[in-house]
């Protein structure tokens, strides 16, 4: 092929330029350490690299999230560990306080410590995280979780919200628990009662506080309060006035919501109770129940509706128009001319309290916000309930942790021993010699000093008044400062006085008997309250048992929360491992896609510069060749 001189140049130069451009690219790749300098170098790879970078960055972020989650969970865990220790300490104190050895003076000392513990518990409940957020307040993390009312009760101001953090592409972990759950407020009501409005209530009545006002008369039971219309109902014989002009067979018919309840002829009589029974017999059909209490009848809907109750009274058989008359039980003045009358009851102006066997406990007129008292307890209902609305109250022994500690304090601080200040003189009378069941001890102390302390090993062994008088003589000799004012055990009219005018305590310690009740001879014989019995009141032990139960329940609750936290922390560890290996993998893939293989690149660089040199040298060589050189 013919070659032109210009082409000879151009070819050589093109080749040199091409080599240089390749060389420059390799040089750039080496300088940047990357295969892909612009997306054009590997479009799919470049896009993948972007996606992989995002994935790596997101996963790193998940790791950060996990760190935060872990910090929060560790804080919660350590808070709950403190709470656990605290409960265990309180439990110990409770057991100690429940011991009869302690007296009224030392129990309040325990209470003082528990009061401190309660404060500590509240502050544990109000633990804040590094960002000053309340750990146990749910979503309301800037609201103090627990506050103490002036009456000492602790209220939860948070909610049941849990904060979740994203610790993996599809894994969220809860980083907290609701204070209400952790501190046992779920299922505890107010700690005394669980009160509820009935599900189908249609009015807006609200059940308020429910408290025990008189423990002595308190009867624990499920009570329900039925709201109905309070009305007077006449009983007795029905008053008919049959016009003598025509002797009719007058009849009275009572209907409720259209259903016939009762039919009475002239001269028939019904008591109020019979009317109540007749109405209730048809309750399934009419949807209306009647309650008779204290001469008042209460009519209430039984179905989940608030429809008016229509009581219809009818006079039948009258042929003399207005001259035949009758007066219905519900007050309708009926005549032959106007033989029927509807009385509509649509209010809830009265209430009936029923116990668990549906027996009426009490009843009365409903007053908005007024209190309803029965069987030693008192509750309030406010608002405007509808006829037929029901409220129930059930005693509940579950208490939240704060209330538990609060009741513990109350129990420890109230006198638990029936020890009373005794006058300086004691009159002892009506002494009956106790008879032992065998293997017992009879002990009487005066101001803690034995008056008598004798074993009664055999059944039928007894202690006589004479023995006591002898013992008293010995006692007076050994302990100056006591004087017998008059009488003796034997005469059942002993009056003992203390010279210094201070209190005198005569006691029969319980531990002197092994068979309960056998040696209670002196107990019933005191007069003037002068004999003090240092026994623990029955209510105290019940209260302490309840505290212990609640402490255990709450402890279980906290321990189960802690085990959940542990599980979550494990989860986080797992996820962290996953995240790290995923990052590693992504980085590796990323590196495969975009990082340069230096060995290969450098050998390419070598090769390329050699060919460039060759191109340059051959160009020079060809350049030198010209025929003109020889002309």
């Amino acid at each position, binding site marked *: 092929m013919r070659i*032109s001189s210009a082409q000879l140049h*151009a070819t050589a130069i093109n080749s040199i330029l091409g080599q240089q451009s390749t060389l420059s690219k390799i040089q750039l790749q080496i300088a940047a350490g990357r295969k892909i300098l612009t997306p054009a170098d590997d479009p799919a790879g470049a896009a993948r690299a972007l996606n992989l*970078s995002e994935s790596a960055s*997101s996963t790193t972020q998940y790791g950060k999230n996990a760190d935060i989650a872990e910090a929060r969970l560790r804080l919660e865990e350590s808070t709950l560990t403190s709470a656990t220790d605290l409960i265990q300490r309180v439990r110990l104190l409770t057991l100690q306080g429940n011991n009869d050895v302690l007296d009224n003076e030392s129990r309040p000392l325990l209470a003082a410590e528990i009061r401190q513990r309660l404060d500590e518990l509240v502050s544990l409940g109000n633990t804040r995280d590094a960002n000053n*957020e309340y750990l146990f307040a749910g*979503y309301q993390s800037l609201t103090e979780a627990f506050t103490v009312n002036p009456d000492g009760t602790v209220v939860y101001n948070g909610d049941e919200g849990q904060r979740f953090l*994203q610790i993996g592409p599809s894994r969220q972990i809860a980083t907290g628990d609701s204070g209400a759950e952790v501190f046992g407020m779920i299922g505890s009501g107010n700690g005394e009662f669980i009160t509820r*409005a009935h599900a189908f209530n249609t009015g807006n009545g609200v059940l308020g506080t429910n408290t025990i006002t008189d423990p002595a008369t308190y009867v624990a039971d499920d009570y329900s309060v039925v709201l109905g219309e309070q009305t007077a109902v006449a009983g007795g014989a029905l008053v008919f006035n049959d016009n003598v002009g025509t002797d009719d067979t007058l009849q009275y018919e009572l209907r409720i919501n259209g259903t016939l309840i009762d039919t009475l002829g002239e001269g028939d009589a019904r008591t109020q109770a019979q009317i109540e029974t007749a109405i209730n017999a048809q309750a399934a059909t009419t949807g209306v129940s009647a309650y008779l209490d204290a001469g008042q009848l209460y009519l209430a809907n039984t179905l989940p509706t608030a429809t008016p109750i229509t009581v219809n009274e009818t006079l039948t058989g009258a042929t003399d128009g207005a001259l035949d008359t009758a007066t219905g039980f519900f007050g309708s003045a009926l005549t032959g001319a106007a033989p029927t009358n509807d009385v509509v009851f649509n209010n809830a102006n009265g209430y009936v309290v029923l116990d668990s066997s549906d027996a009426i406990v009490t009843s009365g007129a409903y007053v908005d916000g007024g209190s309803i008292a029965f069987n030693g307890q008192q509750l309030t209902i406010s608002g405007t309930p509808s006829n037929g609305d029901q409220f129930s109250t059930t005693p509940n022994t579950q208490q939240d942790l704060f209330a538990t500690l609060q009741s513990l304090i109350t129990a420890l601080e109230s006198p638990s021993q029936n020890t009373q200040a005794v006058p300086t003189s004691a009159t002892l009378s009506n002494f009956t010699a106790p008879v032992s069941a065998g293997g017992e001890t009879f002990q009487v102390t005066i101001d803690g000093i034995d008056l008598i302390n004798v074993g009664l090993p055999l059944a039928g062994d007894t202690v006589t008044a004479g023995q006591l008088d002898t013992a008293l003589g010995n006692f007076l000799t050994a302990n100056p400062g006591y004087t017998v004012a008059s009488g003796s055990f034997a005469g059942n009219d002993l009056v003992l006085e203390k010279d210094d005018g201070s209190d005198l305590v005569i006691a029969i310690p319980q531990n002197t008997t092994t068979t309960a009740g056998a040696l209670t001879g002196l107990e019933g014989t005191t007069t003037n309250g002068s004999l003090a019995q240092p026994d623990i009141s029955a209510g105290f032990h019940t209260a302490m048992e309840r505290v212990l139960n609640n402490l255990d329940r709450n402890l279980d609750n906290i321990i189960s929360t802690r085990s959940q936290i542990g599980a979550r922390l494990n989860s986080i560890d797992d996820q962290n491992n996953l995240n790290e290996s995923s990052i590693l993998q992504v980085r590796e893939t990323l590196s495969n896609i975009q990082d340069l293989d230096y060995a290969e690149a450098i050998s390419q660089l070598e090769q390329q510069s050699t060919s460039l040199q060759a191109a340059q040298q051959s160009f020079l060589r060809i350049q030198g060749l010209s025929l003109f050189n020889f002309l």
Partner: protein
Amino acid sequence: MADLTGIGTSALLAFQRSLSTVGHNISNATTEGFSRQRVSFATQTPEFTGAGYFGTGTTVDRVSRVYDQFIVDRLQSNTSNHSQTEHFLGLVSQVDNLLADESAGLSPALQGFFNSLQNSVDDPASTPARQVLLSDAEALTQRFHSIDTRLRELAENAERDLVNIANEINGLGASLARVNDAIVLGTQGGGRIQPNDLLDERDQILRELAELTRVETVEQDDGSLSVFVGSGQGLVVGDGVNEIQAVRNKFDPERYDLVIQQGQVQVNITDQLSGGRIGAVVDFRNKVLDPGLNALGRIATSLTETFNSQHKLGIDYNGNGGTDFFAAGGIAPVPGSNNTGTGSLAATLVDAGQLTTSNYEVVYDGSNYRVTRLNDKKVMFTGGLAALNATPIDGFQITAAAGAAAGDSFLIQPTRSAARDINLFIKDPALIAHAAPIRSSSATTNAGNAGLELAAVTDATTYPLAGDISLVFDPDALGAGVPGFFVSGGPGGTLAYDPATEQNGKQFTLGAPFDGISFNISGTPTSGDSFTITNNTNGIGDNRNGLSLAKLQSTVTVRGNNTFQSAFGELVADVGTRTRQAQITEEAQGVLLQQTEAERQSVSGVNLDEEAARLMQLQQAYQAAAQVISVSNSLFDEVLAALR
């Protein structure tokens, strides 16, 4: 013997001419477009004698250029192709480089934004974390702006380029017409004698033209050349030139269309001009810039739309309902500048997940509207006004007002300006809505083990709730023996729930207008157990909505199964692929061009060695001819001496 002198002289003259042609060749060895010339000799008319014809010497037949029209034509077309790919590569590489810079791309800003979001979600009550989130959101919008601005700058340059090239074409057309004129004058002897250098010049001009756009040529009988561009529009006919004019686009005054006057009408040939730099610019505009700007805008639109709607489902630090997070500009259809009717057109976004990267043209033909998706020319809708206003197209809804005249047209660019218009709507960190609007609680009196778990809310219009919604369980709520919940507040009524069969969980959605509230109840409640759904008052520590916001990062939000990030990756891959293709094509076209150029050079190029040899040959011939004259002279002298 005078004959011999004459013969010698004729040879001398002929070799002189030939030598000067060699000189001409040598001196133009590097002139672009020059074709080497050859002098061809012919014998002079012979002299007749009885013995036959005696030659009378030589004469220069003609000077012709050595060239191959086939190669020249191929060179022209290869030049067009190469120039197009080369220029396109130059243009698309700018975008490629723009996206190549990792720190300048969208990805790091997007990632930074979502990471700050997660940090803020980790700690929703922290104002500094919220502040950082806002700053990073601001940075993200800035990044959208800067990439958008950069692409728009490239677009402006491309437009300027287009105008300049049109002017260049016109200049070259004028030169060509002048050369045409000269060639017509210079062609003699019925086309046998041609002005070689003018022809070379014309070929060179044609080649320069071909670099700008593909041209078709037809040679006329008088030697002039007619040049056609586009789909056969005459640029140069004889010595007349039809100028290409750049006029503003009817929809976008910043855009130019190229038109050529044909008779009385102006023909828009922008899209017909293929090859050359014009083809490159038009391709760049249609295949890279428009889709690129739209793709970027689509990400901005999706981000704005999905983020805003999720954000509105939450409540902020102050307990108020979430507002928009990003501000968007909306879709602004452009009426054609030559519309005659009064009908206007608006468009609103209905589903960002359906958006494409195309623009749409709406044409009214007097009775029907026709909507065409421009990137694949697919007709998306044909029908009347009412139907148009009721048919969503690819994620947006057109609302046209009556009054359009037949032939009126509108351009809808659903995503074109979104990357430019995206801004931060929220300035106050307290207004970031991380919390969900409602929460649930179980009564402390509940004795059963049932639990209620709220699902994410799906509708913001229900909040805040006017009052609490309470659910109370009753074994006979729906009639004797049919257990369920009495609902008070909210929609009221009852919800069937049978703990015996459904204790593993049952999903509920409340009735309208509370249908944004769904929840799951599981476990076994006892009669009277109750749950309450309340407004999330003071729920500052709640991050439920924040978690949903953060999830958007990995949610498919952009048409084509893409997340925000992968949609950008798609754009990068698309530009990268185009650049890569352009590189390969450019290389191939370059080789082709070089080959053709080599072929041309092989035929028409000057080889100096060849010319040197020729020079020597002619010099020898010249010396020989001079010897002929000298011999003739000495012969004459011999004759004179004999006579003396």
